[in-house]
C-alpha cells in the first residue's frame, strides 16, 4: 500500500479513482474501462512528475524523512556482500544508531559506517531513530582507524536528524566524540565516500560526512541544524520550520552549487521510496566510480586531497 505525502494529494486522488475503476471492473459492473484507467493512470503519472519537478526544500525534507525511503540496511543488502558488522566503542557501550562493519563491494573490501533510523517501532527504538550517542562516533573512529591500517576505502551512509541531545550523551562527551570523529575522517590515508541518503543533520552528520567525495541523493537534505531547530533559534518558533527549510539552502542542488557536495544521485519522479531498485543501481555506479577514481593514489595524496578540499570550501563564493 502506497502512502502519500500531503503535497502528493492530486496523485493520491487520481490513483484512488484508478483503484475504484479497477475494482468495479472486477465486480463486473463496468465493462469498457481500460481506456479510462489508462487515461487516469497517465494523468496520475503526469501529476507526480510535475510535483517532483518543482519540489520545495520543505517538501524535500518530508521526502528525505519518508519512512519507506531506503535506509542504511537496504544499501547494505543490495550493494554489499560478505558484510561483517562490528559493534562497540570498546570504552562504554554499543550504539546501534551508527552501524559499522566490513564487506565487499564488487569483490573489493570496503569499510562501512552509516546511520540507521529503523523502519518500525521496535527497530526505531533500537537504533534511537538514527540519533547517535558519543559511543556511535567512537565506534566510527575505531573502524576508520582499522580501515586506515588495513588500507581499505571507507563508505559512509549519512542519515540522521542529528546527534542525540541527552544528559548521558553530554556527560560522556558528545561534542568531543563528534570532534574526534571529524578529525579521524580528515586523518585517514584511505579514500572515503560519504553518501547523504536521507537527512544529513548538523554535527551529527559531519562527523561521518567529511570525505574525499560527498554525494547526496536528489531529495535528501543536508543542514547546519534541522529546520525545526533552526526555526527555534532564528524565529524562536519551531513552527517556522517550513520557512527555515526554504531559506537555508539545504537541498542537493543548492549545496552542489556552493561546492559543498560533489555529485547528486538523481531520484526518479516519486522519490527513492518508490524507486529503490533504480537508486541502488545509481548508487552502485557512484561507488564504482569513486573506487576507480582513487585507485592507486598514495596515502598522503588521498589525505591532502580531502584536507585541501575542505579548506578551500567557500572560497569560490562572493
Amino acid at each position, binding site marked *: 500500500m502506497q502512502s502519500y505525502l500531503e503535497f502528493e494529494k492530486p496523485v493520491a486522488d487520481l490513483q484512488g479513482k484508478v483503484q475504484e475503476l479497477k475494482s468495479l471492473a472486477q465486480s463486473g459492473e463496468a465493462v469498457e474501462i481500460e481506456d479510462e484507467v489508462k487515461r487516469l493512470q497517465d494523468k496520475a503519472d503526469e501529476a507526480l512528475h510535475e510535483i517532483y519537478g518543482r519540489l520545495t526544500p520543505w517538501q524535500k525534507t518530508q521526502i528525505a524523512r519518508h519512512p519507506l525511503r531506503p535506509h542504511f540496511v537496504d544499501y547494505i543488502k543490495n550493494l554489499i556482500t560478505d558484510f561483517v558488522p562490528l559493534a562497540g566503542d570498546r570504552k562504554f557501550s554499543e550504539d546501534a544508531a551508527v552501524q559499522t562493519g566490513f564487506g565487499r563491494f564488487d569483490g573489493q573490501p570496503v569499510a562501512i559506517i552509516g546511520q540507521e533510523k529503523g523502519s518500525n517501532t521496535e527497530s526505531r527504538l533500537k537504533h534511537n531513530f538514527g540519533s547517535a550517542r558519543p559511543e556511535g562516533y567512537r565506534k566510527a573512529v575505531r573502524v576508520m582507524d582499522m580501515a586506515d591500517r588495513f588500507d581499505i576505502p571507507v563508505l559512509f551512509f549519512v542519515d540522521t536528524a542529528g546527534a542525540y541531545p541527552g544528559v548521558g550523551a553530554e556527560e560522556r562527551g558528545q561534542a568531543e566524540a563528534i*570532534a574526534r570523529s*571529524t578529525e579521524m575522517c580528515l586523518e585517514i590515508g584511505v579514500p572515503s565516500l560519504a553518501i547523504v541518503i536521507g537527512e544529513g543533520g*548538523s554535527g551529527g552528520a*559531519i*562527523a561521518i560526512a567529511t570525505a574525499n567525495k560527498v554525494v547526496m541523493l536528489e531529495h535528501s537534505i543536508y543542514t547546519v541544524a534541522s529546520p525545526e531547530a533552526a526555526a527555534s533559534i*532564528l524565529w524562536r518558533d519551531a513552527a517556522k520550520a517550513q520557512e527555515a527549510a526554504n531559506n537555508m539552502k539545504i537541498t542537493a542542488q543548492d549545496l552542489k552549487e556552493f561546492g559543498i557536495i560533489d555529485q547528486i544521485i538523481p531520484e526518479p519522479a516519486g522519490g527513492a521510496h518508490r524507486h529503490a531498485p533504480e537508486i541502488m543501481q545509481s548508487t552502485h555506479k557512484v561507488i564504482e566510480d569513486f573506487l576507480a577514481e582513487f585507485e592507486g593514489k598514495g596515502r598522503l595524496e588521498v589525505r591532502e586531497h580531502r584536507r585541501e578540499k575542505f579548506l578551500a570550501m567557500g572560497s569560490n563564493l562572493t
Partner: protein
Amino acid sequence: MNWINSVVRPKIRSFLNKRESPENLWVKCPQSGEMVFYRDLEANQWVVPNSGFHMKIKARDRMKAFLDNGEYTEHEVPDVAHDPLKFRATKKYADQLRDYRAKTDMKDCVLLASGKLIGRDVTVGVQDFDFGGGSLGMAAGATIVKGLEMAVKNKTPFILFTASGGARMQEGMLSLMQMPRTTVAVQRLREAGLPYIVVFTDPTTGGVTASYAMLGDVHIAEPNALIGFAGQRVIEQTIRESLPKGFQRSEYLLEHGMIDMVVHRHNLRSTIGKLVGMFMKSPLNDMELAAPKKKTVRDAIVEAEGAGDDADNAPAENSEDVAPPPVAHAE
C-alpha cells in the same frame, strides 16, 4: 538614573568618551546579586570581587589582560563571501552583521592577535559572545584557520578562548563546513609539533564545542562556564525531565574528564604561561625567575582549582602576575 548622573558625572565623563557608554554604571552580579561599580569590574578583569563570578569580557579587554604589558598586534579577519544565502529571518542577515559590528567594533566574532605571554611569543584567538552570540560562520572559521596557520609559520603555540552559541544559522551549511575546516588547521598545528591550548569561557556550545574547541592539547575552563553540545532547552524537551544540578558547567566537565582544569581568570596567564614554556622546551626566563618561588603542591592545586582572591582586585602588574596570587582560602 538621574541621581546617579548628578552624583558621579564628573568621574565617569572620561571613560564615557573613550568607550561606548555602559547603560548602567552599577552592574548586578548574576550570582550574588551584589551591585558592583563598573570600573571596579573592569579593573578586576570582569570578575566580581566578592562572589568571584566570571562575567563576560570583551575580546580586546581579554587580550590586554592576558598578554604581557597588555600589548598585542591585531591581525585582520580574512575577507569571506558576504551573506551568500541572502538570508533573512526576523531581520536581514546583512543588517544584523552591521549591528554586531557597530556594537563590538569587530569585523566578526574572533579577534586574532600575536603578542607575548610571560616573555614568549604566542598567537591568540578570542571569540566574543557579544558578536552574534560568538556564532561560527565563514569569517570566524577563516580567522581561526588563519591563526593556526600563523602559529605554524611563526612556530608559536596557539591559544584560543572560546565563546559561542554554535553555528551561524544565517550562513547555513557554509557554517557547518567550518567544523572540518578548522579541524584541518588544528591537525597541521599538531603535525608541526606546536601546542594548542583551549580556554573555554561562558558559554561554549554546539558546533564550536564539537570541533576545534574539543581538539586542544590542554583544555582549561573558566569557573562555571556553560560548556556542551546540545542546548539545555533541547535536552529538557527530549528527556522531559529537569537537568541535574551544575549540568554542563565547567566543574561538571572536569568531573567527567572532558577538561583538564578549571582556572580563575586571574590565573590564566601563569597557568598557560607555564605550559607554554614547557611545551616549547624554553628555559625559565627572567620574568619567571624574578617571580617569588617556594610554592607548595597544595598551593598549585588551590590555584588550579581557581580560588579567586580579594587581594588580586587591582589590575596586576606584569611581574606580579607571573606569580600565583596569594591564596586566601587555604586553611
